[in-house]
């Protein structure tokens, strides 16, 4: 009986197609990705049935932590640059070019304007450490949040204001933030919440 010859097949697989797919997906993810903003604070927002999405751009976010500290953040590098220039002019603080640049790269922050210069001279990895940040002063004597709101809106007139509060925040803090907004004629704002199913 003649031997049945099994033809030996090469185990080499053509990788080109797989490579094509991999890079196609890679391109897709690279283009659609938007990195999570490096917020210094972690807040657990309450949930609601509202399904309105927050827009990606032109957002001014006021973050309120559980212990009542207020953080302020605004999107857009150039908006932030304009804002810090205006704040510097208003309070007579001359920010150097490096400080302006550092500010333009900072997400949310919660320091009084007086110690802003010091804060911007910290190394970047320390700047996102929320424990060292006392929050933006909000009491009636020294309400600095109002300046950030006013100059933030001047820097980007299309901006929307969103409040991202922790569910456990005591109401008086929220109320003073809302009062500050209302005093500055911001009567329409968004509350950032998690999604929850609508009950039947």
């Amino acid at each position: 009986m003649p031997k049945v010859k099994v033809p030996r097949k090469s185990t080499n697989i053509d990788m080109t197609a797989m490579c094509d797919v991999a890079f196609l997906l890679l391109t897709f993810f690279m283009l659609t990705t938007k990195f999570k903003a490096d917020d210094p604070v972690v807040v657990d927002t309450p949930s609601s049935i509202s399904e309105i999405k927050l827009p990606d751009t032109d957002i001014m976010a006021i973050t309120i932590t559980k212990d009542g500290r207020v953080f302020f953040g605004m999107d857009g590098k150039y908006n932030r640059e304009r804002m810090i220039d205006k704040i510097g002019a208003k309070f007579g603080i001359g920010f150097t070019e490096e400080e302006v640049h550092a500010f333009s790269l900072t997400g949310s922050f919660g320091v009084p304007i007086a110690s802003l210069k010091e804060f911007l001279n910290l190394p970047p990895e320390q700047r996102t450490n929320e424990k060292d940040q006392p929050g933006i002063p909000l009491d009636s004597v020294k309400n600095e949040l109002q300046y950030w709101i006013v100059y933030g809106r001047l820097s980007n007139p299309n901006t929307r204001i969103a409040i991202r509060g922790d569910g456990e925040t005591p109401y008086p803090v929220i109320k003073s933030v809302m009062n500050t907004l209302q005093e500055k004629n911001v009567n329409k704002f968004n509350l950032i919440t998690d999604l929850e199913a609508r009950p039947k």
Partner: protein
Amino acid sequence: MAELDTSQGGGKKKGKKHGAKKMSTRVDLTPMVDLGFLLITFFMLTTTFSKPQTMEINMPVKDKESKEEGQAVKASKALTILLGADNKVYYYVGIENPELLVTDFSKTGIRSVLNEKNRTVKDLVVVIKATKDAKYKNVVDVLDEMAITDVKRYALVDITDFDLELIQKVNVQ
């Protein structure tokens, strides 16, 4: 496609003959694929697809000149909700001599009250007042209840001493 090489065996021989060595143009793409998938994994994990949800609220315009706080609400159409400590909800109907009742955020709590009122009272106006012991979550929850029960007119108002006294009286009992 990847086999870009031309004539392996024969080529070698030929190359030897002519002196110029013909190298295989075949490239092993496996490391490249590895790298590609590694990067895909990275981008997939860092990407944020879900945008946060928001609730839009409109506050009344604060008029500094006129001292009157908005329009008066008809007593028969008003329902006042007070938010207290420990997720408690107090509510009363009308304005004069109210009877304060206590409820909670459960399905049979404030929601059934709102549903019932919304059905029976035309143009119901809900006034929401939060005490200083209330949490932000309570405020969002009660605003959410407005959306769930489809109450069209509601307002977030500062609490008065009168309301605080009512709560105290109920808590003593």
